[in-house]
């Protein structure tokens, strides 16, 4: 009899092909959305953690202004740093390995007919050490280039690809604003970071060149400090803060006009952002789940009259309540399973495509898959089965007369 009931259920599914299709679609949308969204959200979070680890835990950043972490308007224009300040930090603090001064701008790099808008970074060779960049071809800057601010640069892989295609960039001259700049080195690619931002998309030149020819000032907007092995970041942070207050002549009781961030903080900040992202994606997914659920509910409610009559007919010709219910339950389960499986495949597919596009890891969470599947199955069974149960408990004649 069970086999026969399963056959009846399958017949009912095909007899009502459109209704079955819409039900499956509702489940596919719900399950697919949840799995895709959560997979992408979690992938981003993992990527942030991995990125931060790649940067190294012994790296700190010093930025002008208070509470740079919190963002928002600080009211006043922050007092920038200078190269001298950077060198004092490196010299005064024994635990500091290197400290690199940075100043940045956006500009267009032009070579022949090709051009690319990119980040222009003014710094010196210490930056390669602090941020762990390796030279793939060519060389770093030499002493005279740094000291007299010569028009030379080291470029990232993405800039090379765009401007030079397959040819060797070292020795070529690119133009940045009014500056003609000889390429002396090419960086080894680090690939994309979290959110797909391209880390290789920049041009580095000596900071004096940058200040004189690009920015037109003597500012340093960021210092990247690498501390020696075995020094705790808390201690490094405290010492750097004390030294900075001293260098900047900040009196007792006055607030800092700079911020020191360690990688843990940066990691927390970034995870905060990805957390928000995951939350947003989850909200989208929850809405999809709800939409799918409402869709199924609607389909079931619309067909309740026809189904109630069908139940009346079956009861009249001698079906027992539990046989009718079993048929409807099996029908709901088949549709839910089918929709759920397609939903998992679709969700994982979208998740994989999204992960590839954003260059983030693809590690689907079996818990979420089970949860989404369970929820949709429950929706399918509840809305498919419970109206049927109500109908099957009617007097057969009332079910037949249902309008």
């Amino acid at each position: 009899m069970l086999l026969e009931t399963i056959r009846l259920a399958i017949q009912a599914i095909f007899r009502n092909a459109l209704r079955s299709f819409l039900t499956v679609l509702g489940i596919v949308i719900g399950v697919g959305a949840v799995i895709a969204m959560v997979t992408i959200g979690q992938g981003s979070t993992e990527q942030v953690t991995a990125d931060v680890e790649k940067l190294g835990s012994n790296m700190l950043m010093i930025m002008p202004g208070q509470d740079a972490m919190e963002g928002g308007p600080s009211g006043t224009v922050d007092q920038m740093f200078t190269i001298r300040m950077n060198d004092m930090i490196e010299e005064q603090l024994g635990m500091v390995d290197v400290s690199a001064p940075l100043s940045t701008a956006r500009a267009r790099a032009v070579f022949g007919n090709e051009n690319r808008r990119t980040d222009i970074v003014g710094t010196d060779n210490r930056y390669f050490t602090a941020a762990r960049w390796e030279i793939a071809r060519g060389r770093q800057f030499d002493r005279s280039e740094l000291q007299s601010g010569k028009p030379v640069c080291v470029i990232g892989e993405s800039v090379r690809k765009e401007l030079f295609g397959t040819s060797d960039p070292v020795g070529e001259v690119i133009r940045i604003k009014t500056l003609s700049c000889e390429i002396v080195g090419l960086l080894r690619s680090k690939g994309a970071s979290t959110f797909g931002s391209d880390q290789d998309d920049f041009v580095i030149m000596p900071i004096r060149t940058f200040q004189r020819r690009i920015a037109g000032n003597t500012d340093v907007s960021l210092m990247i400090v690498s501390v020696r092995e075995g020094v705790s970041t808390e201690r490094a942070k405290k010492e750097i803060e004390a030294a900075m207050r001293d260098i900047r002549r900040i009196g007792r009781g006055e607030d800092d006009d700079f911020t020191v961030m360690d990688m843990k903080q940066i990691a927390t900040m970034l995870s905060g952002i990805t957390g928000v992202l995951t939350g947003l994606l989850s909200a989208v997914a929850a809405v999809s789940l709800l939409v799918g659920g409402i869709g199924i509910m609607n389909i079931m409610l619309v067909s309740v009259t026809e189904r109630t009559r069908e139940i009346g007919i079956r009861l009249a010709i001698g079906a027992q309540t539990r046989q009718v219910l079993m048929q409807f339950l099996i029908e709901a389960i088949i549709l839910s399973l089918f929709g759920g499986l397609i939903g998992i495949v679709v969700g994982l597919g979208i998740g994989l495509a999204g992960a590839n596009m954003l260059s983030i890891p693809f590690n689907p969470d079996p818990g979420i898959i089970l949860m989404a599947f369970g929820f949709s199955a429950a929706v399918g069974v509840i809305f498919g089965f419970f109206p049927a149960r109500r109908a099957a408990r009617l007097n057969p004649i009332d079910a037949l007369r249902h309008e």
Partner: protein
Amino acid sequence: MAELSSEGEPLIRLRGISRLYGSGEAEVRALDGIDLDIQKGEFVAIMGPSGSGKSTAMNVIGCLDVPTAGEYHFHGVEVANLNADQRALLRRHYLGFIFQGYNLLPRTSALHNVELPLIYKGLGRAQRHAAAIEALEKVGLAHRAHHDPSELSGGQQQRVAIARALAGNPEVILADEPTGNLDTRLSVEIMEVLKGLNENEGLTIVMVTHEADMAAFANRLIWMVDGRIESDGPTRKAA
């Protein structure tokens, strides 16, 4: 289900059957103390004004509805003592229904509609198929076995419904206005099918109708008014 005994009892025996709808001021006595015996092999027509309780009586006899008061013995068994599942078994094995509105499953072939009661009877596929085809042959519709109800005329749909009622090999066929939606020519066709089943296969038939011409096919006519039986006797055969 065990064979029901019927020693000395009529097939259908109603005593003081009442069916009330609603309560208080809105109370309706659809059936008001019906006494009725129907013997095996009878062809009974029930007539009466609209609202007189004909359908209600049929539903009670067919175990689709339960009376508010009174005794109903089917084959000597008190139906009031049966639960819903047992009543379902009674319908499955002894009763066949024909409704005014056909009540076929939509988007389902005639053959499959006719097979439906046999599925619940537990027949195997081959047996089911053979029995369904046989029933469709009896109503002259074997050549339409694979058509959906929407592809059949009203008369053909009703014949499919008759085939469905027959397929389960019941003892009693209950037909509530089986020709209510059909023109005279088709109605006569249907009545001839029913008459043949009664005469050749000994099926007991209880039929509600509004048309005297159709009632004339029966052997016995019951006239209902206001939930009571007003007259009960043999039909006068048309000259």
